[in-house]
């Protein structure tokens, strides 16, 4: 029993029931967590945290001391097992709620959508609380759903004693209310901004797919969308055919700074770069691989050699090549050796004679 807690006979009986039930509660917490985690994964919903716990004996004793008479049996206490999902955005709270409704039985009589209470100073408490039961039956449990900012608010106000036993002067309550309003505004703005950005991404993807590449500024987001179209695939396959090689997929985003260093401003610039240099990049790769039996290549081979060829055709020479390797590999003295090797491999290729 917890220290400094005096329970009457009824409270002690409830504690006895709790101890008897404890192993089943532990199992319930794990099962509910697993089911929720799996359902969220299946729906592709990423949350900042899912917490689950069984109420401690100390916490229950405190609760029973305060309001033990309210509960006839241990089954009337709905938060012996508690789960909390902390989402990034406000609209995700609703998505999680839909999932919870699908995988659990909800006790609507005891569930509360505190967001609809519209308390002026209660931002952090605006979470959605469902009292649930597994579809297979068993004790009820509480599921709290809130955003990360609501969680921060709850934690901070709890720490400051906002809901404590000391009556807080009106001027301080007002300051809490101001903060609550600000936090709610930030939460809503994050959600709004996410929608705006998602819309912007769709527009850019649409432009990329429709081939209006000169209207698409080169950035991390647009380059990623462009890569979804596998613009280097054709050259990679041609290169792979030299030694019947397999192509091992690797991220190409590290090449974005190289393309930016070339002064490319739009995805259209990148497409022209591919069109203009593919044949010469292929010839460079032939000169590298034809005398080897290397039959595994990374998917960066085409893009890497496109970059190297462009540097050579622009007269960038040793320093230009080294700068490309410095950008994609990090600066190291060995990059000078690689630059010399490329110069040697490219020396007799037709495009070099035009420089």
């Amino acid at each position, binding site marked *: 029993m917890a220290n400094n807690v005096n329970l009457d006979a009824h409270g002690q009986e409830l504690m006895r029931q709790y101890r008897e039930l404890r192993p089943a509660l532990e199992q319930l917490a794990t099962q509910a967590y697993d089911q929720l985690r799996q359902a969220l994964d299946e729906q592709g919903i990423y949350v900042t945290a899912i917490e689950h716990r069984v109420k401690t004996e100390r916490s229950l004793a405190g609760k029973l001391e305060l309001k033990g008479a309210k509960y006839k049996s241990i089954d009337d206490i709905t938060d012996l097992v508690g789960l909390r999902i902390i989402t990034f955005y406000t609209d995700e709270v609703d998505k999680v709620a839909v999932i919870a409704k699908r995988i659990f039985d909800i006790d609507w009589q005891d569930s509360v959508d505190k967001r609809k209470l519209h308390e002026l100073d209660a931002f952090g408490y605006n979470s959605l609380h469902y009292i649930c039961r597994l579809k297979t039956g068993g004790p009820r449990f509480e599921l709290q759903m809130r955003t990360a900012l609501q969680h921060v608010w709850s934690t901070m106000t709890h720490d400051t004693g906002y809901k404590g036993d000391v009556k807080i002067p009106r001027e301080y309550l007002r300051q809490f209310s101001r903060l609550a309003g600000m936090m709610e505004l930030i939460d809503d703005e994050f959600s709004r901004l996410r929608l705006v950005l998602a819309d912007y991404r769709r527009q850019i993807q649409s432009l990329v797919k429709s081939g209006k590449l000169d209207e698409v500024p080169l950035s991390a987001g647009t380059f990623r969308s462009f890569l979804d179209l596998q613009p280097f695939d054709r050259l990679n396959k041609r290169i792979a055919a030299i030694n019947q*090689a397999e192509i*091992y997929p*690797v991220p190409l985003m*590290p090449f974005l700074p190289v393309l930016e260093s070339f002064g490319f401003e739009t995805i259209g610039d990148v497409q022209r770069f591919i069109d203009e240099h593919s044949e010469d990049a292929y010839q460079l*790769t032939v000169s*590298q*691989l034809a005398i*080897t*039996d*290397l*039959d*595994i*290549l*990374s*998917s*960066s*081979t085409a893009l*890497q050699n496109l970059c190297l060829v462009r540097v050579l055709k622009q007269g960038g020479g040793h320093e230009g090549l080294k700068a490309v*390797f410095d950008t*994609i*590999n990090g600066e*190291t003295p*060995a990059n000078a*050796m*690689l630059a010399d*090797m490329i110069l040697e491999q490219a020396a007799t290729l037709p495009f070099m004679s035009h420089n």
Partner: protein
Amino acid sequence: MIAILEGSLDTAAVPETEAAMSPLLDVAGKDIILDCTNLQYISSGGLRIFLGILKSAQAKGGQVYISGITNDVRAVFAMTGFINIFKFK
């Protein structure tokens, strides 16, 4: 964990090397260093061994570093684009 490679990791040497390096696939949460100071040549099979170790290490929260690489071996890594995948010390 350090593995020291010597000589030529050509096609013939791949099975033996793969077996010798297989314990590295069980390393969890630690960085692995492949010491290539005295490695004179690496074939596609050798690259596949390195790749397998890298994938296994990354899945378990570790990283793979290649140290002391010779110019000839570095050239192979550069030509195949694998130079962008591994970290070099």
